[in-house]
C-alpha cells in the first residue's frame, strides 16, 4: 500500500513538473528587464521555500521525538533534513547562475546569500553529527537537540541579517508587498512550481523514510544477533 502511494505520488509530481515546465518555458513571456534568465527564479524561490519547509519540519519532528521518544519521529527528522539540503543547494546554485548573468559575478558576500550558505552548512553539520554517533538512542537524542539549535540559529541569522544592507532583490510576492510588483500569471507560476517541488520533496521523504525504518530494523536485528 505504502509503495503504491509512493509510486502514485511520483507520477503526479512528474506530470505536474512537466506541465509547469511547459507553461514557464513556452507560454509565459520573457521578463522585461532581465530577459529569459528570469525563469530561473521559478526554481530559485520555490527551491528555497521547499528547503525551508523541510528544515522547519525537521525541527518539529525533532521536538516530537524528544517529547514522545518514538523512533518514527527521528526517522522522519533525518529524512526531511536530508531532502531539504538539496533543495537549499538548488536555491544557492540557481541564485549563483542568475547572479553570474545579471550581476556579472558568481557570488557576493551579501547577507542573504551568506545566511543561506550558513544554514546549508549548519544542516550539513547535522547530517555529519548523525553519521558520527554509533549508538541509535544517543544519535536520535543528540541530533534532535542539534536540530532545535540549528533551526533557532538559522532564524536568528536571517533576522540579524535584516539589519545589514542587502544587494539581493527585494521581496516580490504580493503577500509581502501588497501587490503590484509582479505579474499575476508569473506569481501563480511560482506557487505552482513550489507545489510541484513540495510534491517531489514529499516523494523523496517517503522513500528516504522507508529506507531509514528498514535500516533501523536491520540495525536492531544485527544487535540481537550479536547479543547471542
Amino acid at each position, binding site marked *: 500500500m505504502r509503495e503504491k502511494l509512493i509510486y502514485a505520488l511520483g507520477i503526479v509530481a512528474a506530470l505536474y513538473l512537466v506541465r509547469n515546465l511547459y507553461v514557464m518555458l513556452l507560454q509565459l513571456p520573457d521578463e522585461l528587464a532581465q530577459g529569459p534568465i528570469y525563469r530561473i527564479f521559478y526554481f530559485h524561490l520555490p527551491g528555497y521555500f521547499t528547503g525551508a519547509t523541510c528544515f522547519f519540519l525537521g525541527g518539529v519532528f525533532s521536538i516530537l521525538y*524528544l517529547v514522545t521518544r518514538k523512533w518514527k519521529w527521528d526517522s522522519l527528522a533525518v529524512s526531511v533534513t536530508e531532502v531539504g539540503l538539496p533543495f537549499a543547494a538548488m536555491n544557492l546554485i540557481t541564485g549563483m547562475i542568475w547572479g553570474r548573468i545579471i550581476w556579472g559575478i558568481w557570488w557576493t558576500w551579501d547577507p542573504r546569500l551568506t545566511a543561506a550558505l*550558513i544554514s546549508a*552548512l*549548519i544542516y550539513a*553539520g547535522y547530517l*555529519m*553529527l548523525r553519521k*558520527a*554517533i554509533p*549508538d541509535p538512542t*544517543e544519535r536520535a*537524542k*543528540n541530533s*534532535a*537537540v*542539534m536540530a*532545535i*539549535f*540549528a533551526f*533557532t*540559529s538559522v532564524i*536568528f*541569522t536571517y533576522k*540579524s541579517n535584516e*539589519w545589514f544592507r542587502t544587494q539581493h532583490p527585494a521581496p516580490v510576492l504580493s503577500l509581502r508587498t501588497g501587490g503590484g510588483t509582479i505579474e499575476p500569471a508569473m506569481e501563480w507560476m511560482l506557487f505552482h512550481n513550489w507545489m510541484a517541488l513540495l510534491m517531489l520533496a514529499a516523494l523523496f521523504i517517503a522513500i528516504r523514510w522507508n529506507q531509514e525504518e528498514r535500516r533501523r530494523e536491520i540495525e536492531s536485528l544485527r544487535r540481537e544477533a550479536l547479543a547471542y
Partner: protein
Amino acid sequence: MIAQLWRIARKDLHSELRTKEALNAALSLTVVLLLLFSFAFDPVADEGKQWSGGLLWLVYSFAGALIVNRGFARELTNDCLEALRASPVSASALFMGKTLAAFLILLGVELIALIPFSVFYDAGFGGHWATLAAVLALTTWGVTVVGTMFSALTVNLHLRELMLPVLVYPMLIPALVAAIEITRGLISGTAFDPVWFRLLISFDIIFTALALMLAEVVLVE
C-alpha cells in the same frame, strides 16, 4: 542550584588550573595564530586597523573551541560523567557550572592574548576599556554556552576535536559578526552601530534559555 552550579564550576577550574591542559594549549595557539596571520596580512598597514578586530575574534573562537571541548571530555576518564549524572546535582546546574568554568578560562585566555595582540597589531582600543570588557564578556558567554552544549553533544565521538568546531562555528556567526564589528570600531576609532550590542545580548539570552531547557535531555538520559 546556584551553590551546585558554583561547586561544579569550581571543580572544573581547579582541575584546569592544576593540569593547565586547555589553558596552555589555548594560549600557545593564540600566539601562533597571531604570528601566522601577520604573514597573511600586513599588520602595520593603515587598513590593518579595519580587519585586525576580526582576526582577534577568529583567534578567540579557535581558543574557545579548544576550551569548551575539554569541558566534557575531561569527565570521560574514569567515567566521571556517569558519576556526575548520578550525583544529586541537577542537569541545568551541571551544564551551567561547566559553562561558567569554560567562560572564566576563555576570558582569562582572551585577556592575556590581548597583550601580544596589541603589541603585534598596534591596537590601542582608543581607551574604551568598558566597551571592550562588555563585548568580551557578552561574546565569550555566547561562545561558551553554545560551545558547551555542543561539547556535550559530541563528547562520545571519535572525531570530537574536529566535529565540534565544524558544528559550532556556523552557529556562532551572528555573535562573532557583532563582536567583530564592535571591536573594529574600537580599534579603528570609528563609531559602531549600537544594534550590535542588542544582537549580542539577544544571542546570549536566546541560547542560554535554549541550553537550560535542553540540558536535562542531553545530560540526564
